[in-house]
């Protein structure tokens, strides 16, 4: 039958992709030899990554890219990624490293190599003032949204499932900005995001009628830098880079610059302990 035959041909083509295996040179050597560090950042996630008023990549993650390139003695090329682009960009070799606030779950670590943690977020709710969302369990009665494919989406959905809330009140958005736009327009009552991002948004005049609400219970979002899983020497180097950022006070300096507040001592301590 024609239909079955064409499906079979299609499946065979993809089966071949699985075969073939060649050794690769060391990524650390590659970057130094190429003289360019291709660094992926999610520039839709202030203050970690965003475009400044001159349309240049800015934020803590972008500054980490520049610091890393400086230590390596190479030029930096920053790629703007969506959350979903992070892994494909590494696998296709478009980026050498992704400094993109990536939560270090054990499930993901089966696919991609993580460094030590370099930042800790809390997941939080943002909603209109007077919406009546006091504790996290209040969300049951509200329309909730979150950006698609983020750890906070996963955490919210897991919690909602545990509490038996169902999916009908939930909407996923392709990007962080679309989520905020939907909240602003009143399509959703509450958005799940990170405390850092919410604080940045609340400082803008568009969100002056909004407030930061309860935290997602029992969860610290601990994020690492990611690279290809098999590039052990490269990941080792990135780990040492992170240690130096804290030891040399550069992390505290950048935190102050991007968050307008001194870095909490517990965050420094937990990063030192690699927790």
């Amino acid at each position: 039958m024609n239909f079955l035959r064409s499906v079979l041909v299609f499946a065979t083509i993809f089966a071949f992709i699985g075969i073939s295996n060649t050794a690769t040179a060391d990524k650390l050597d590659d970057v130094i030899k190429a003289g360019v560090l291709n660094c992926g950042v999610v520039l839709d996630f202030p203050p970690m990554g965003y475009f400044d008023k001159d349309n240049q990549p800015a934020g803590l993650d972008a500054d980490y890219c520049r610091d890393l390139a400086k230590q390596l003695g190479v030029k930096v090329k920053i790629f703007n990624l969506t959350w979903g682009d992070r892994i494909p960009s590494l696998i296709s070799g478009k980026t050498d490293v992704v400094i993109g606030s990536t939560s270090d779950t054990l499930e993901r670590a089966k696919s991609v190599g993580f460094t030590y943690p370099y930042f800790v977020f809390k997941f939080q709710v943002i909603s209109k003032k007077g919406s009546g969302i006091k504790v996290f369990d209040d969300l049951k009665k509200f329309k909730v949204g979150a950006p698609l494919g983020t750890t906070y989406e996963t955490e919210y959905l897991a919690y909602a499932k545990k509490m038996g809330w169902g999916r009908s009140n939930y909407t996923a958005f392709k990007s962080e900005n679309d989520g905020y736009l939907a909240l602003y327009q009143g399509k959703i009552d509450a958005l799940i995001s990170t405390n850092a991002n919410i604080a940045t948004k609340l400082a803008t005049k568009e969100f002056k009628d909004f407030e930061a609400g309860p935290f997602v219970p029992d969860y610290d979002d601990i994020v690492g830098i990611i690279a290809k899983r098999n590039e052990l020497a490269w990941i080792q180097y990135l780990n040492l880079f992170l240690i130096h950022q804290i030891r040399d006070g550069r992390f505290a300096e950048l935190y102050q610059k991007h968050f307008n507040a001194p870095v909490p001592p517990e965050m420094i301590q937990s990063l030192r302990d690699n927790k």
Partner: protein
Amino acid sequence: MGDYEFHWLIVYQALPQMLNGAFVTLHVAVFSMLLGIAFGVLLALGKMSKYRMPNIIATAWVEIARNTPALFQIYMAYFGLGAFGIHLSPYMAVLCALTFVNSGYLTETFRGGFQAIPRTQYVASWSLGMKKVQSYRYIILPQMFRRVYYPMTNQFIWSILMSSLGILVGMGELSGETQRLQSLSFRTLEFFIVAAIMYYVITKLVLFSADIMSRRLFKGEI
């Protein structure tokens, strides 16, 4: 992709969720196509009409639908209308946008179909005492659909593939579900390959059933 190791088990475990997404894709594509055909016929008649108003409406519709990206139209249906306080659900927004674009393209296809029918057919039906509606219902439309059958299936495939843009507004169709699932495990390549195969199978299935249906409707003489 020399050093990439494929893990397929995790995709296998997530198949029920992906199939759910595939169902939403099929659902929105079929409905937007049926609505698109209905609007397309009306607009084609409007475009050929000697009256001004239907003509202007149909021309504006076709011009906008065909010359702007579907992505933009979905965005407008969801966030654009939202700015005016009209809140469509993600599903409704995608359905409206796809219906809009489908009918825009089909209008031109149908117009070509109508014009390919010899004038004598119209005249003959009137001479039999048929009213205008009757002559369209029994004589003109069946012949028109027969002529535009293949371009119409083309549009159907487009509407299936375009529904993947529903990911933009969180519709939870095949692309959206795939994106969510891959972000849990970062097994992007595996999930995307399986999603691509699913899209392929869906379009093949749709073409297959359209073929069977056309044999029934047109008695095998397309």
